[in-house]
């Protein structure tokens, strides 16, 4: 006897989920992409636009970071002396700006002295695995800063959001070449000699202070003038005298008729940072020739610094 049995065997599968978990720490890793900033030739009292950039990049991190910065004082490059001017003459700004616009760089004395610019570099992500940002810098040269090449270390740093301890990145070397220059300003733009009758004179005691407000080398003082004029009446320039010292009488050197500058042999001392304005005084006197027609006379006097 044959018995036939049939049965249906069904395949069965078993699945179960494996839950894996990992804790990914936040990290930021900032590098600078340029380590040299050259401000070029700059005159004393002048500043550069705050537009030289220091670029930062994050290629390995996963969270944002704040950019920190500090710096050292400016000092002459080796072999050019030991002159110095303060770190705060360097300005930084999160965006490009005009001369004089920005924040003064602070002195680097250690990691804790790095200043938080609040400039943030975004966290990289799979879509943007590399992020970057820029900090802009410029420099003002103080009046009286001696001419020559200078250098400064700008110390950039960063701090991560979850790991706020500051880190520094490679230093940026800043260079600037201060040029020799001189300036001029006068304490007054006119001398009032008052009313004078013919054959009379005014003592050479009218003072004009000739200043150099911010140069860095000595300057020679030159002077000449035009004739005295009142309508169609004139009298000659040489009736005006100048002197380096005040005199109680009408005495001194006659002015030359312009354009014929004469060197007064008075030299403006070179200003220095501690004393950025130097000055010397010229004194003027006037005599009116006999039989000079009455009137209100004026004369143009040119006082010039030469360096």
């Amino acid at each position, binding site marked *: 006897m044959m018995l036939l049995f049939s049965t249906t065997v069904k395949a069965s599968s078993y699945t179960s989920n494996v839950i894996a978990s990992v804790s990914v720490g936040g990290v930021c890793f900032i590098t600078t992409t340029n380590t040299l900033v050259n401000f070029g030739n700059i005159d004393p009292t002048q500043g550069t636009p705050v537009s030289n950039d220091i670029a930062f990049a994050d290629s390995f991190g996963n969270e944002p970071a704040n950019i920190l910065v500090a710096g050292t004082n400016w000092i002459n490059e080796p072999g050019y002396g030991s002159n110095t001017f303060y770190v705060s003459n360097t300005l930084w700004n999160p965006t490009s700006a005009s001369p004089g616009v920005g924040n003064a760089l602070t002195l680097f004395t250690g990691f804790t002295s790095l200043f938080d610019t609040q400039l943030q570099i975004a966290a990289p992500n799979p879509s943007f695995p590399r992020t970057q940002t820029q900090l802009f810098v410029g420099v003002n040269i103080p009046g009286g800063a001696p001419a020559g090449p200078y250098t400064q270390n700008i110390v950039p740093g960063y701090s991560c959001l979850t790991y706020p301890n500051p880190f520094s990145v490679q230093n940026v070397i800043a260079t600037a070449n201060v040029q020799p220059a001189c300036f001029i300003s006068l304490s007054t733009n006119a001398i*009032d*000699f008052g009313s004078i009758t013919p054959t009379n004179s005014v003592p050479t005691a009218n003072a004009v202070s000739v200043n150099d407000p*911010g140069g860095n080398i000595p300057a020679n003082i030159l002077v000449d003038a035009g004739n005295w004029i009142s309508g169609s009446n004139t009298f000659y320039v040489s009736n005006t005298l100048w002197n380096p010292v005040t005199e109680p009488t009408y005495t001194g050197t006659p002015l030359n008729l312009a354009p014929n500058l004469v060197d007064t042999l008075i030299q403006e001392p070179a200003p220095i940072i501690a004393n950025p304005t130097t000055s010397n005084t010229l004194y003027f006197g006037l005599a009116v020739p006999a039989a000079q027609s009455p009137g209100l006379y*004026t004369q143009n006097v040119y006082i010039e610094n*030469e360096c």
Partner: protein
Amino acid sequence: MQNKNITSTHRLIYFSLALLLISGLTYAQLGERAGPLNFNVPVNGSQTNQWYLINEGNVPINFYIYAEQPSQVPNEITPSIITVPLNGTIAPYSTLIVNVSVSMPANNIPHKGSWSTILQAIETSSSKSTNGANSAQLYAGIAKEMFIASTNAIPITTTTPVTTTVPVVFKPSVYQIVVVISLVIVIVILYIIKKLIDNLKGDKALAGIITKAKLPKKKKQSKNKRK
């Protein structure tokens, strides 16, 4: 009424003080980068150098430039100086570059070779106080020395005397004449003496001949006598 006057006075004082305050906040100071401008210009050429004018202040500076041209000398080449710009405005806290060009004409007229002159940048202000009296109006400026040398110049030569061969005319002095005369006299005297001597010699010779003719002949002695 009195109160109104006081109020007006106060307003005037405040306005004047405000003006003083504003004038103190604005300033303009002209400067320049140091160092003379040196030019080495070939004949029929030109050279341009840059003169840096600086405004240290917070208001613009209006200026004009005066370039003192080297003096013209007849029959000599003189360079000409051009500045660009001749006048203008320097913005606050900025440097303006003035291009200074020197041109040397071309021809074969001699050159002096070098010149020195001076540039001036003079600040022009909008107003100057006069106070209704004789007054000197003061203008601040910056001066710049210029030194110009001409390369491949035909130098100016000073006129030198022309030397030609001229026959030497002997003009003896009195002393020389006396010496010559004396020599002549001596020669003559010596000649006379020689003549006399010669004459004397001639007489002697004649006398000798005569004497010989008069003297008897000496006999020859025999050689045998002694035998």
